[in-house]
């Protein structure tokens, strides 16, 4: 193409060199004339601190479990691999749980990625759209035949997770509820539902049946099919439907009923 740069290319090339030097190696710094000035490190530091602080704010349970120094070191590595993509830093941190799962120094804390996932789900629930909540009376008003084919649509803020073999939910709740972290742990798998029907995010433990039911509802399956899915996940649970379904409704898990009218 020769040296005939378009004007737009020169601003862009300045910015490319500058950005490469911000995160990069000595070679990248050599490609940016300004990077040798002391002031360049102000930008480097400000950007890294802003990213790491945003992660610390969004993953408070992870932060508390590993301590500030460990957290900041791990977060800085994550930032280099996955810088933010949008200005709203409250939503930064997608993929941090997966990063921790592959992070060698975190190997001896097998529950840490799960705790990070719950911190992330809390943020998602916190920032999600507002919406009405389906109460028990709305469901009770449906004829059994209408209920069977109706679809319960999960609330925009509803998030859920299951953890096999690890008491991730208990660890996370101890942090969030200000309880001591060093008490006896039930070393079993756990499930949780987070939702924000109004005001702040709330959470509660769930049985595997509830998780399977919610997942089936989220994929658009009818009430009857979702109950079948729950029964497959936890045989016998259909007999307890009168317990776990009202609990889901009370938690604000659903925002509307589709297909409940002709």
């Amino acid at each position, binding site marked *: 193409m020769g040296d005939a740069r378009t004007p737009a290319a020169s601003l862009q090339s300045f910015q490319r060199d500058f950005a490469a030097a911000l995160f990069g190696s000595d070679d990248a710094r050599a490609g940016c004339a300004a990077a040798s000035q002391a002031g360049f490190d102000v930008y480097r530091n400000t950007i890294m601190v802003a990213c790491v602080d945003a992660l610390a704010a969004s993953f408070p349970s992870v932060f508390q479990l590993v301590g500030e120094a460990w957290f900041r070191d791990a977060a800085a590595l994550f930032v280099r691999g996955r810088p933010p993509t949008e200005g709203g830093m409250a939503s930064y941190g997608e993929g941090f749980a997966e990063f921790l799962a592959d992070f060698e120094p975190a190997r001896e804390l097998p529950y840490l990625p799960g705790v990070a996932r719950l911190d992330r789900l809390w943020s998602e629930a916190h920032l999600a759209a*507002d919406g009405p909540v389906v109460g028990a009376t709305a469901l009770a008003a449906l004829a059994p035949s209408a209920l069977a084919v109706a679809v319960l649509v999960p609330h925009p803020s509803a998030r859920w997770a299951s953890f096999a073999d690890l008491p991730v939910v208990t660890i996370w709740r101890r942090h969030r509820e200000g309880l001591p972290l060093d008490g006896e742990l039930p070393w079993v798998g756990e499930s949780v539902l987070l939702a924000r029907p109004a005001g702040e995010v709330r959470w509660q433990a769930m049985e595997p049946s509830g998780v399977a039911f919610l997942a089936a509802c989220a994929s658009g399956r009818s009430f009857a099919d979702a109950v079948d899915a729950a029964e497959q996940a936890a045989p016998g649970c259909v007999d307890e439907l009168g317990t776990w379904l009202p609990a889901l409704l009370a938690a604000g898990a659903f925002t509307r009923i589709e297909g409940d009218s002709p």
Partner: protein
Amino acid sequence: MAPHRGAGAPALTAGLGLKAEHYGEALACRADGLWFEVHAENYMVDGGPRLAWLEAIRGEHALSLHGVSLSVAGAEPPDRSALDRLAALVRRFEPALVSEHLAWSRLGGSYLPDLLPFPRSDEALATVCANVARVQEAIGRPIAIENPSHYLTLDGHDWSEIDFLDEIARRTGCSLLLDINNVFVSARNLGTVAEDYLDAFPAARVSEVHLAGHRPDPRVGEALLIDSHDAPVAAEVWTLFERFTRRAGARPTLIERDAELPAFAELLGERDAAHARLVGDVALAA
């Protein structure tokens, strides 16, 4: 310019950056001329408590949306979804003021959370003007563009910063946000004279003033000041503010504080000090 001055409503004098820690006190505060500014990006969310708080506070106070990530000096156009979200915020909250920085922060799909510098070339001028026009088109109203803090001496400037800002305003119809702490910090860091900059700034284009605290770089010391927003406004910056206000008259003036957050009452005290200077100058000019 008299932003958001409805019939019988008091003019905006001095405002405060709104922090989540102070939502309750901000909502209840009835100080004369008070308004609040938020970083627009913190409210570019789908729903939840922070939007509910902002709506409650907007019900009692005038609001300013201050963008930090639109990257109007970026070689790439502003992010479309961010523009859409900003437009939705403007529709919902009807802010008295909307502003962004003369800086870039986006490249290749990444967001670099800072206000980055660039050579003020003819090409950059055209790029910034096109981007400012895109923002104004998206939200349906003019914005104000803020002078940033400088930490580097760059080659390739075809324009002084003041002429560059004045030309952007002339071409796009935007106004200017004069950050007097940035003027002080930049003058110290670049070895220029803050008073000269302030006296040459096109006052008629200024729709808002920012005041904030700074601190020396921990390694370099007083020769490199950082626009840290984590300290009270410095005495020298108050003096510059008085100098500008004597020349230009009162403008809506914000006390910015983003870190080492003190009690709301302490921030309100700084705001009251700015308010007193603005009201005093207005009285003298009348």
